[in-house]
C-alpha cells in the first residue's frame, strides 16, 4: 500500500483528575490509550463505540483541538504533533471537521454566507465578492441555494445547518474531514439525506473521512473500514464486511447484537459494570465483562492480532475467539 493520508500511532490522551486541595491526584482518565490506525486518501474509516469510549477525543486529538498526551499523527508524512499552533494553522486547510451539533457549530450572529466564507478569509484565499461567490457555489454543492447566503442559522432546520457545516468544511478543499457524529443530532428521515450527501461528495472530490459514530447502521452505510473502540483502545479494526458481519471480538458482537432487530439467539451481552476508565488496560477489563470469552484474554499478551489481512482483533489468543465465532452463527 502506498503511503497513507493519515497515520495515527499510539495516540494517548489522559485527562488528569484533580484531587481535593490537599489530596494527591487520584490519577487520570485514560480517554484515549494507545490508538493506532491509517486512513488512505479517499477512504472512510468509521470509529464506533459506546459514549465515553474516547472516539470524539480521538478525533479532536488528531486535529489538535485537544492537545494529546502522546503519540504521533502524521498527515501526508508530516508529523502534526510537534508543530506550533502557528505552523499548524496552514495545515488545517487539509484537515477539516464537522461537529455533532449543527446548532452550536454555527455562530448565531453570522450570516450563513459569512460563516462559509470564514475559512477562505482566514487562509487569505478569497475575500469580499469572490468569497461570496465561492460560498454560493459551495451552498449549491451541498444542496442548498444561493438565496440562503444572507440568512442566519436560526432560519434553518438541523439538516440544512449540517449541510451548511459541510459546505464550510469543504470550502478549503480538504483531503480529510473528521466527521464527529455528523448525523446523530438529526431526525432519522434527514440522516439518510446527509449521509448520501457525504457519500456523493467523497466520490466527487476524493476526500477521506474519519467517521465517528455510535450508530453501526450509519457507519455501515458510509464507511469502507470500521474500527471499534472500547475504553480508549481499538479492540477490532478491519474492512466493513468483516467487522460488521463476522465480528470476532466479543465487544463488537455485543454492540452488533444491541442493534434492535438482531436475532435474539446470537445475543452477546455485556456483564457487570464498565471498568473504570482510570485503570490501566488489563485482562480484567475484558474477562469481567465477557466471562464466556475469558479464555481469549488470558495466557498471553493482549494486543491487536491479525485475524485476516487488514482485520485485527485485540486479544491474547486469537484462535479462541475464532473458535467461538465459528460455533455461534452471527447475524
Amino acid at each position, binding site marked *: 500500500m502506498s503511503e497513507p493520508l493519515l497515520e495515527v500511532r499510539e495516540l494517548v490522551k489522559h485527562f488528569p483528575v484533580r484531587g481535593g486541595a490537599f489530596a494527591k491526584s487520584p490519577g487520570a482518565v485514560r480517554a484515549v490509550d494507545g490508538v493506532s490506525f491509517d486512513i488512505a486518501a479517499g477512504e472512510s474509516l468509521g470509529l464506533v463505540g459506546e459514549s465515553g469510549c474516547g472516539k470524539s477525543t480521538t478525533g479532536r486529538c488528531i486535529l489538535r*483541538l485537544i492537545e494529546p498526551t502522546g503519540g504521533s499523527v502524521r498527515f501526508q508524512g508530516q508529523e502534526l504533533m510537534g508543530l506550533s499552533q502557528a505552523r499548524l494553522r496552514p495545515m488545517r486547510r487539509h484537515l*477539516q471537521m464537522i*461537529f455533532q451539533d449543527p446548532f452550536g457549530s454555527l455562530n448565531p450572529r453570522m450570516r450563513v454566507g459569512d460563516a462559509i466564507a*470564514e475559512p477562505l478569509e*482566514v487562509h487569505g484565499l478569497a475575500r469580499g465578492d469572490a468569497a461570496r461567490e465561492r460560498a454560493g457555489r459551495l451552498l449549491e454543492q451541498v444542496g442548498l441555494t444561493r438565496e440562503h447566503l444572507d440568512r442566519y442559522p436560526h432560519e434553518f432546520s438541523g439538516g440544512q445547518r449540517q449541510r451548511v457545516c459541510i459546505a464550510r*468544511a469543504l470550502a478549503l478543499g480538504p483531503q480529510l474531514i473528521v466527521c464527529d457524529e455528523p448525523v446523530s443530532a438529526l431526525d432519522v428521515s434527514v440522516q439518510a439525506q446527509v449521509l448520501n450527501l457525504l457519500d456523493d461528495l467523497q466520490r466527487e472530490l476524493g476526500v477521506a473521512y474519519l467517521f465517528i459514530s455510535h450508530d453501526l447502521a450509519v457507519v455501515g452505510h458510509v464507511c469502507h473500514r470500521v474500527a471499534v473502540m472500547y475504553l480508549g483502545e481499538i479492540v477490532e479494526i478491519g474492512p466493513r464486511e468483516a467487522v460488521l458481519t463476522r465480528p470476532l471480538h466479543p465487544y463488537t458482537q455485543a454492540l452488533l447484537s444491541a442493534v434492535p432487530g438482531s436475532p435474539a439467539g446470537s445475543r452477546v451481552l455485556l456483564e457487570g459494570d464498565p471498568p473504570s476508565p482510570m485503570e490501566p488496560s488489563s485482562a480484567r477489563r475484558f474477562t469481567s465483562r465477557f466471562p464466556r470469552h475469558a479464555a481469549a484474554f488470558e495466557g498471553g499478551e493482549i494486543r491487536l492480532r491479525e485475524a485476516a489481512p487488514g482485520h485485527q482483533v485485540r486479544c491474547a489468543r486469537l484462535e479462541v475467539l475464532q473458535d467461538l465465532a465459528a460455533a455461534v452463527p452471527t447475524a
Partner: protein
Amino acid sequence: MRLRWGVAVAVLAALLATTALAGVRWRAGAPSSAIEWVCGADADRTSPADRLLPPLAPLGDGGRSLVGTDELGRSLGLRLCLALGTSLLVAGCAAAAAMVIGTLVGTWSGLAGGRTDELLMRLTEASAGIPAVVVVMVLAAALSPYGMWPVLAAMGVLFWQPVARVVRARVLALRNELYVEASRACGSSAWWRLRRHILPATAPTVFAYGGLLLPRLIMLEALLAFLGVSAAAAPHSFGRIIAGVTATLTPLSASWWPVLVPCLALAVLLLVLNLALDRLAEAHG
C-alpha cells in the same frame, strides 16, 4: 430585534452626545457653548437685584426668568442646561473609560486563563475593595487645577471592575462555544476568533453594563461638585448649583424654589436615563 437594539443604542448615544456638546464650554470665557449662543445670553452674568427669584418672576431688565434665578441672580435654566452637558460628558466619558478598561482586562483574563486569570481577577477584586468615592474625591481635589478631565479619568479608572468581571464570564462561556472551536478547527488565529466571534458577542453585555454605570456616575459627579471637590473643574454642574442655592437657605427664607428646581432636574435626568436603559435592555431581550 438586533436592529432595534442597534438603533436604540445609536439614538441614545446621539442624544447624549448632542446634549452634552450643546452644554459644554470648550474654552473659558464669554458665551461659547451652543446653548448660550442660541439663547444669546450668558450663564455667568450676575444680577444682584434678581437674586433667588421663583420661576416666571419678572426680572429687573424687563424679561422673565423661566425657572428662576440663583443666589447671584444668574439664570437657573441656562445654568441647568450647562450642568446637563457637564454631567453627561463626565459620566459618558467615565463610563466609556470603564468599558474600555473593563473589556480589555476581562477579555485578557478570560482568554489567558490559568495564572494570568487568577492574578487579574484578584487585582480586580482588590481594586473593587478601594472606596471609590473617597479615592475620586482625593484625586479630584489633588488634580482640580488641571480641569475636569482628571476627575473623569479617575472615575473611569475606579469603575471598571464590574465590567471586567462580566466580560470575563462572557468570554469564558464563549470560548467554549462550539462555533469558536469550529473557527479554530478551520485554522483561525486567536486574534481572529476574538475579533470575529468573541467581541461581537460580548458587546451587548458591555453596553448594558456601561449604561448601568451612567446614572451612578452622574450622581457621583453631582456629589463631588456639591462637596466642592471638583469646583475649579466645572463651574456649572448640578452639584455646584444645588450647593450654591442651598447655602442661602435659612429657616426664615421663603425662596425654596431655587433649591427644588435643580434637584428636580437631576431627578428627572436620572429617571429618563433609567427608563431609556430599561427599554434598551428589554429590546435586547
